[in-house]
């Protein structure tokens, strides 16, 4: 036998033994292995399909076990767990400027990939100039790009599964940060840097860090503005007063049923440049560490959430603030200067002209709660300060308005007490239609009467989305009136307040809590009653200086003139001239002696951008010209603006292509002191019939812990899965049948041989 076998093996015609075995093995592998591979592929694809459903960030109400925050997704009946943002604010104040770094830590609590969109406020005069995104250990630096280009870069990265961050300006004080492709349970850190000038009023310096975007009332497109075609055909289009309403209406949580979200920590290193006197945080409790006489470090005490603005004020140790301040900075080939000049207070002997004051008070739903009390207390104070020679009127508004008197009336005892009674009875409810009362207040029946000074005092939180309409109205109809804005509440819209006061040639006073009413209103009345400083001019003797603001404002008592300039050379003098009442006033500063400052170039550019906006609102330059200027300034100085955005893209893709990405807005807290029902009870019913915008609803879950539910933006209809696995099953099945048949023949053959 052995020999026979040996023979066979030796036979040249027979296959060598090793080859035969290899063939057998190959055949076996093919017959058994292939079906198994097919099976494996089949189960794998089933598993991934399953994983896709399991990993989808969308959940149904039944899936939610604890009090989770849910956003309604575009798929009916399914929700997404809202991403969270923790914020750290680190500010260094050096002399006249504040350098801030905001760190936003985005967390995705869901099992899917999300794009988080966070709307947050920044000071209205902040120059946002840098963006960093930290992914794992990599730091990605953002670039400034034209808004559209930045959006394209972001969208491309988003589609490719790369992490990306896009910082866009929606309003000068309202920004959004979109972060794409945050993986399940992952964190992405985004840092935003900005510079801001410190505010000086009287002897008090102040810094304000807005922390929450207040829900805004967006007038429905019923109040349309029509634009007729230029060809004279008479046909035209109508514009929405709030063209970007979807971008400025993030979801807001009802504080009664949700624990506050979005924790905040703040640290301010205050290097005043002079010996510090009183340093006060107005709305938060703080820990203060004194480094030296000029320097303190202030940080928030305890747990805080983004639900009110942070306000810090400081005064010099010797009661008087320095009357002048001059700072310089050299960036590249250019020198920049920033000057603060406070004109002296001169008590005038001459007789004051009586005043004609129109008070406008906002009693809309957003003022509900403590804001309304502050507004009423403020107005009551103002009414009590009127003199019998003055004339006055009171207009209240929500989405309707009432003018107390037909025209302004003399401020005799009877009229004033009627007005105080009227104000005392006001209650907050309804929407915020601010245009009509503003027009009514600006409507001047005696435009040429020089015997009265006409002033408008406007008390509101400014929680509206159609700012530009109001600003245009002020610019167009101001006449001899002056507009004084009084910002009420824990999170007023400071952009609207400041710009309205600037265009209205008045001032802006902010009242954030009831105990500020007396002091701040007293200051405001001191301003209203004192002579103003007019005809201001600022001249650099060295020439070719680009000074901003281009139109120097009239100044009221205790207010400094703040100017920024780009200089040809750091020599010569800066001369400021003006009229205090009827007396000329002049001050000269040596430019070469300016102190070193920080970030002045950014502040100059930021202020130049505001100039372009103001000039365009006033109709001095065309909209296109303003756009051109803004774009140039923003790109040259790397600033976020209406036309430019910062974008950062991680080159390494992180989201696999087959995993869906869901967009979710980060929910916000209701500003402290607001009444949720007053705001949303009113708006929800009205809006439901007018637009398809997000309405706040609450899903009822286990008692106590209920998720807030809100419509996520549904721009695009998602399409269902539309492939069966019939084919896959049949292929796998046939392969298995084939394999078993193969095995059958194989075993028969070998058995036969045996």
């Amino acid at each position, binding site marked *: *036998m*052995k020999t*026979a*076998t040996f023979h*066979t093996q030796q036979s040249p015609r027979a296959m060598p*033994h090793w080859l035969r075995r290899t063939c057998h093995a190959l055949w076996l592998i093919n017959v*058994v292995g292939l*079906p198994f591979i097919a*099976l494996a592929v*089949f189960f794998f*694809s089933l598993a991934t*399909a399953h994983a896709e459903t399991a990993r989808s960030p969308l959940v149904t109400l039944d899936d939610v076990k604890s009090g989770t925050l849910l956003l309604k997704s*575009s798929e*009916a009946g399914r929700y997404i767990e809202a991403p969270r943002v923790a914020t750290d604010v680190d500010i260094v104040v050096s002399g006249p400027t504040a350098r801030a770094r905001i760190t936003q830590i985005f967390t995705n609590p869901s099992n899917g990939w999300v794009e988080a969109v966070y709307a947050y406020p920044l000071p209205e005069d902040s120059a946002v100039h840098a963006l960093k995104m930290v992914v794992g250990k990599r730091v990605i630096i953002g670039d400034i790009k034209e808004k559209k280009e930045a959006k394209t870069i972001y969208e491309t990265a988003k*589609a490719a599964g790369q992490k990306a961050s896009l910082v866009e300006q929606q309003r000068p004080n309202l920004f959004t940060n979109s972060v794409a492709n945050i993986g399940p349970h992952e964190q992405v850190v985004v840092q935003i840097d900005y510079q801001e000038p410190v505010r000086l009023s009287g002897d008090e310096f102040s810094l304000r860090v807005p922390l929450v975007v207040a829900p805004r009332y967006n007038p429905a497109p019923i109040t349309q503005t029509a634009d007729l075609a230029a060809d004279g055909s008479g046909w035209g289009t109508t514009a929405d007063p709030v063209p970007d309403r979807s971008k400025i209406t993030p979801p807001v949580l009802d504080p009664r049923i949700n624990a506050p979200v979005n924790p905040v920590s703040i640290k301010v290193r205050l290097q005043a440049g002079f010996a510090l006197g009183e340093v006060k945080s107005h709305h938060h409790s703080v820990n203060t560490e004194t480094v030296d006489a000029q320097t303190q470090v202030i940080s928030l005490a305890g747990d805080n959430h983004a639900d009110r603005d942070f306000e810090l004020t400081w005064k010099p140790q010797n009661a008087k603030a320095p009357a002048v301040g001059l700072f310089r900075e050299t960036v590249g080939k250019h020198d920049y200067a920033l000057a603060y000049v406070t004109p002296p207070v001169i008590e005038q002997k001459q007789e004051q002209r009586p005043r004609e004051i129109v008070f406008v008070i906002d009693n809309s739903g957003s003022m509900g709660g403590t804001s309304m009390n502050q507004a009423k207390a403020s107005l009551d104070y103002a009414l009590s300060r009127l003199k019998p020679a003055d004339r006055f009127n009171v207009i209240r508004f929500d989405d309707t308005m009432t003018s107390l008197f037909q025209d302004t009336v003399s401020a005799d005892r009877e009229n004033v007490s009627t007005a105080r009674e009227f104000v005392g009875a006001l209650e907050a409810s309804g929407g915020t239609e601010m245009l009509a009362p503003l027009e009514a207040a600006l409507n001047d029946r005696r435009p040429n009467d020089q015997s009265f000074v006409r002033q408008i005092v406007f008390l509101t939180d400014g929680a509206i989305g159609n700012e530009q309409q109001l600003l245009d109205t002020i610019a167009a109809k101001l006449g001899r009136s002056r507009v004084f804005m009084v910002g009420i509440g824990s999170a007023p819209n400071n952009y609207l307040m400041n710009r309205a006061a600037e265009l209205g040639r008045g001032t802006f006073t902010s009242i954030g809590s009831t105990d500020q009413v007396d002091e701040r209103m007293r200051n405001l009345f001191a301003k209203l009653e004192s002579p103003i400083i007019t005809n201001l001019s600022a001249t650099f003797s060295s020439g070719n200086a680009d000074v901003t603001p281009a139109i120097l404002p009239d100044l009221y008592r205790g207010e400094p003139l703040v100017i920024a300039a780009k200089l040809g050379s750091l020599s010569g003098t800066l001369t400021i001239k003006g009229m205090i009442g009827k007396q000329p006033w002049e001050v000269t500063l040596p430019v070469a002696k300016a102190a070193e400052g920080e970030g002045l170039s950014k502040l100059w550019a930021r202020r130049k951008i505001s100039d372009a906006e103001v000039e365009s609102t006033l109709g001095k330059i065309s909209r296109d010209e303003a756009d051109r200027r803004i774009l140039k300034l923003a790109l040259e100085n790397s600033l976020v603006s209406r036309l430019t955005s910062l974008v950062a893209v991680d080159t390494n893709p992180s989201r696999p*292509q*087959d995993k*869906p*990405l*869901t967009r979710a807005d980060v929910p916000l807290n209701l500003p402290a002191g607001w009444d949720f029902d007053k705001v949303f009870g009113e708006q929800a019913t009205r809006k439901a019939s007018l637009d*398809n915008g997000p309405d706040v609803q609450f899903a009822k879950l286990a008692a106590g812990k209920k998720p807030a539910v809100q419509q996520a933006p*549904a*721009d*695009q*209809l*998602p*399409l*269902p*899965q*539309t*492939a*069966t*696995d*019939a*084919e*896959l*099953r*049949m*292929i*796998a*099945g*046939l*392969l*298995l*049948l*084939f*394999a*078993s*048949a193969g*095995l*059958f023949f194989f*075993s028969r053959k*070998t*058995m036969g*041989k*045996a």
Partner: protein
Amino acid sequence: MSTIRTRYGVSEWKGRAVLRPALRAGMIVMALVGLVLVSQGLWIHAKAMVAQVLLDRAFTRSVATGQPVKPWSWADTWPVARLEFPRIGETSIALHGASGQALAFGPGHVDRSAEAGDNGTAVYAAHRDTHFAFLKHVQVGDAVRITRRDGKVFTYQVTETSVVRWDQSGIDTNAAGKNLVLATCWPFDAATSGPMRYLVKARMLE
């Protein structure tokens, strides 16, 4: 002569004696699993076809009575429209909702999309390998006739076809005019599911 070929052959033979029952058992298991899979695949197609017959009956009754009629007592959906493609001679009964359960039986009318014949965009989705397999033959210019549950008939004309990602459909359900979108998975001949969708867009003929 074939019993033992080498001295290793001895052990090989003994090994086979042990292997044989295992091999046979494996063979049977494989055959059974294969049969189950094949029949599952066939079942999906059979269900899709049989359901359409039942759905057609239910829909006809529904039009006659004006009430939603469930095609079988335990169904969690009901027919809402008949889609007809005269040029290629295809007909399909669409169901309320586009959940996985509904799509097994027929095209689904996607929730939140407009009703056929109303302003906005009506969206119907179905599987690429069953009810909407014929969608690849639909051409621009083809007519699509939709009979609603209330008996009203609307005729649409196909304006374009496109391929999109499922989450970037670009479909605006409130778009101006009376629009129709038929959606299915893409590519048609793929075996596994993917993120892409094939859309047939149509506008109503006034």
